[in-house]
């Protein structure tokens, strides 16, 4: 990966981060991790998040054991078919490979993977060590592609080039350069769309796909949740790109517009309002009157069903206060979902948000809401205390921040176990909020032991005082 290419990705014009006029622009995209304070993943992590959901491909990590050995099999993307993506493949390089170069080992590794597992494609990821010793990933992949008549795709995303976000975009570049446009679909329809940036965590996609089917929108390629390698190859034949979790693969949306003239829109699946808007916007972009009409009918049906299903939860969740701590788009999309349920978001993070995100947040949050520009565990706990929030909604990384402080918690990020997308997802989310908030455990974990109450502590202090003074004090107290 060349320097200018990385600079290009960081200055991605499709990204709102780069539209800020003031000094210190591009902050969110180019800001460097702070030694001692940083807690995020690396570019390799980001590239894996974006590509590993391709279910039938093999994902081969060229590096020492840490990169794959510590992480394989831990992604939450679900598959309706192949399970090859769940396997961990790595060259597990040794000191020898570092001294003599790892290219031969990589080539042999690719051969062995293909021989035994016959995947339709192999994604090969570089890592810090193999990038540092100068292994030529592109050349090895090119040679292997020819030799094995299978697409072997280089992903130049060594961890040290930057953040998870940059890694997402580097993954997008690999798809653009090596995958998209290399095959043709069996047939096309005027209603073909691609979903980009939706990874089918906990099967979320499955809550949304039936809606598209119902209104007559065909999802041509899913990039990349529950995708096959083949469907991404013909993604260039879609009429519209719908970016979900929009910033992660924004470069794909913009470049596919340039190369294939496919327009893109940025949408969210969380909450009634956003789901409605998503369907309407797609219909607006590609649809005729009939499609628009079907969308309205489906929305009306879904809302009617939803109102009945949500009624008991709305009553129980009304005015409950939450602090939301998550990245980018979710900081407002989840907020609108929570408000659909009658809950109040008293604070949310704006750490990774663009100016556009921030404007949406401001509108949703109201004037009393707190925007958390940066946040570590202590800061989050301080805000919860200050706002007297009932729960924390955040990524898995903050789960124990909340639980150890005896505060109800809901996981909203990658590692979550429940699907929250679409109308059915909102019911799921309501159930989870209700379970978390009204669990009988909170009272127990906050309950001090009989010997930890204020009274018993006082007695403890008096333990060593002479008995006459002690009884005097006790008398005085009662």
């Amino acid at each position, binding site marked *: 990966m060349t320097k200018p290419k990385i600079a290009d990705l960081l200055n991605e014009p499709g990204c709102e981060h780069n539209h800020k006029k003031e000094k210190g622009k591009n902050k969110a995209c180019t800001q460097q*991790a702070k030694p001692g304070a940083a807690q995020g993943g690396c570019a390799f992590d980001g590239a894996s998040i974006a590509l590993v959901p391709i279910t039938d491909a093999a994902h081969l990590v060229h590096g020492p054991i840490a990169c794959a*050995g510590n992480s394989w099999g*831990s992604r939450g993307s679900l598959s309706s078919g192949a399970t090859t993506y769940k396997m961990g493949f790595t060259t597990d390089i040794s000191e020898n490979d570092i001294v003599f170069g790892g290219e031969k080992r990589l080539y042999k590794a690719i051969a062995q993977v293909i021989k035994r597992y016959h995947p339709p494609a192999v994604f090969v990821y570089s890592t810090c060590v193999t990038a540092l010793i100068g292994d030529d990933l592109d050349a090895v992949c090119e040679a292997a592609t020819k030799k094995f008549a299978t697409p072997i795709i280089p992903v130049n995303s060594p*961890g040290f*080039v930057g953040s998870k976000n940059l890694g997402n975009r580097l993954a997008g570049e690999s798809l653009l350069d090596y995958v998209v446009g290399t095959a043709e679909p069996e047939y096309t329809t005027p209603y073909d769309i691609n979903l980009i940036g939706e990874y089918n965590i906990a099967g979320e996609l499955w809550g949304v796909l039936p809606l598209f089917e119902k209104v007559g929108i065909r999802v041509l390629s899913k990039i990349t949740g529950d995708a096959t390698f083949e469907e991404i190859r013909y993604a260039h034949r879609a009429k519209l790109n719908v970016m979900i979790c929009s910033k992660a693969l924004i470069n794909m949306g913009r470049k596919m517009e340039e190369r294939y003239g496919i327009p893109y829109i940025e949408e969210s699946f969380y909450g009634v309002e956003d789901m409605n808007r998503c369907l309407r916007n797609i219909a607006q972009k590609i649809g005729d009157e009939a499609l628009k009409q079907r969308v309205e009918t489906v929305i009306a049906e879904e809302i009617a069903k939803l109102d009945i299903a949500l009624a008991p939860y709305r009553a129980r969740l009304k005015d409950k206060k939450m602090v939301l701590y998550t990245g980018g788009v979710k900081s407002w999309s989840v907020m609108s979902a929570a408000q659909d349920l009658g809950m109040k978001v008293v604070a949310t993070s704006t750490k990774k948000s663009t100016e556009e995100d921030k404007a949406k947040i401001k509108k949703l949050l109201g004037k009393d809401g707190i925007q958390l520009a940066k946040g570590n565990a202590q800061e989050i706990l301080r805000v919860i205390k200050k706002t007297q929030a009932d729960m924390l909604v955040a990524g898995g990384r903050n789960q124990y921040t909340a639980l150890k402080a005896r505060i109800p918690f809901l996981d909203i990020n990658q590692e979550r176990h429940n699907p929250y997308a679409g109308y059915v997802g909102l019911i799921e989310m309501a159930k989870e909020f209700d379970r978390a908030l009204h669990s009988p455990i909170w009272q127990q974990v906050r309950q001090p032991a009989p010997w930890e109450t204020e009274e018993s502590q006082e007695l403890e202090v008096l333990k060593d005082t002479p008995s006459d003074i002690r009884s005097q004090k006790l008398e005085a107290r009662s």
Partner: protein
Amino acid sequence: MTTVTKSKKSVAVNPLKQSPPLGAALAFLGLKGIVPLFHGSQGCTAFAKVLLVRHFREAIPLATTAMTEVSTILGGEDNIEQAILTLVEKAQPDLIGLLTTGLTETRGDDMNGILKSIRQRHPELDSLPIIFVSTPDYKGALQDGFAAAVQSIVSTDYGTPVETFQFNSLPQVTILAGSQLSPGDVEEIKEIVETFGLKPLMIPDLSGSVDGHLDDDYNSKTPGGTSLEQLQQLDRSLFTIAIGESMRPAAEILQQRFGTEYEVIPRLAGLAPVDSFIWQLAQIIDAQTDPRFLGSPQIPARYKRQRRQLQDAILDTHFYLGGKKISLALEPDLLYQTIWLLKDMGAEIQAAVTTTKSPLLKELAIDNVTIGDLEDLEDLAVGSDLIITNSQGKGLADKLNIPLYRMGYPIYDRLGNGSRCLVGYRGTMQFLFDLGNIFIELGH
């Protein structure tokens, strides 16, 4: 004598091993008030953290020097310095455990030189011990990194303790607790040692930090474990007991530094090994007693009773375990302990896969052991009655339709990894019952 086969493949498929830095960080987590600091890219820390958080279901304080491409080429000194200063400001740690990664080892940062010059510039760090260990990702596995960190812990100079005169202070024994021991195992070992009237100095003590307990405050460093004050008293131990062969080099370091005699107990599950551990403790006590009152060493009544309970459990479970074909993929120390215990119960070992070299591999109760991955296990385990490995073995166990018993790291899909105990008389019983119940469930 067991033949050790190294997999000839160029690709690890479904890797069994984790990285040495992860092991080193785990060992550091057994010290109180520490933050393990990875000198590498931020992903090195993030992946290790996610794995440990998912295994223990605990917040795990790990930090990174956040190396970038540019800082790697220029050298990591500035990043290390900034990371240490930031940690001191934000977490006020009692100790920092600094470890390298594949990235910074390939680049070849002169760590001793860097630490020296940071210390020169920052005299305010004089009272902060920084335990340094070199753990390139490309050399060895979790067990090696853990062992290397323990060696660094016992090699570091912690300064002299503030002298407190103690009457009747109990005789102290250093216990080197290898990576095969879970927090629950460490807790059990501590309890046994204490019951003998000895004070155990655990290196490391995971039972105080990742055992799963609810504290009053939020922690950005480890809330428990062996403290700096305890580390300052390493030289006072009467004896070192190293549990796990990988702890031997650390025991040797203690012998060289302080003249402390040691004994390596390669396994602590099964009747005979626990007997010899208990007997060892009794001997230490005995040596402390006035020779005029010489009698046979006193064994606490509870262990006499537990021993009889274990014997009974062995009788009850042997119906289910005898003749069963079992395939295992575990790190060497844990593999050795588990294979011998199964062998002692009359089970057959069908296959053994491990992560890294160890002198113990030649002494397993089987003909062959493979240093390899879970793909190797999948090939070798066909037709077994039981598979024993970490949670990553779920896929192959399902595929082969063989029940899985989870041991090692990581275990994602079972609760209670912080308190589970499989050593000592009681832990051995637990292991036998767990396995027996699996076979009863299957109707074997």
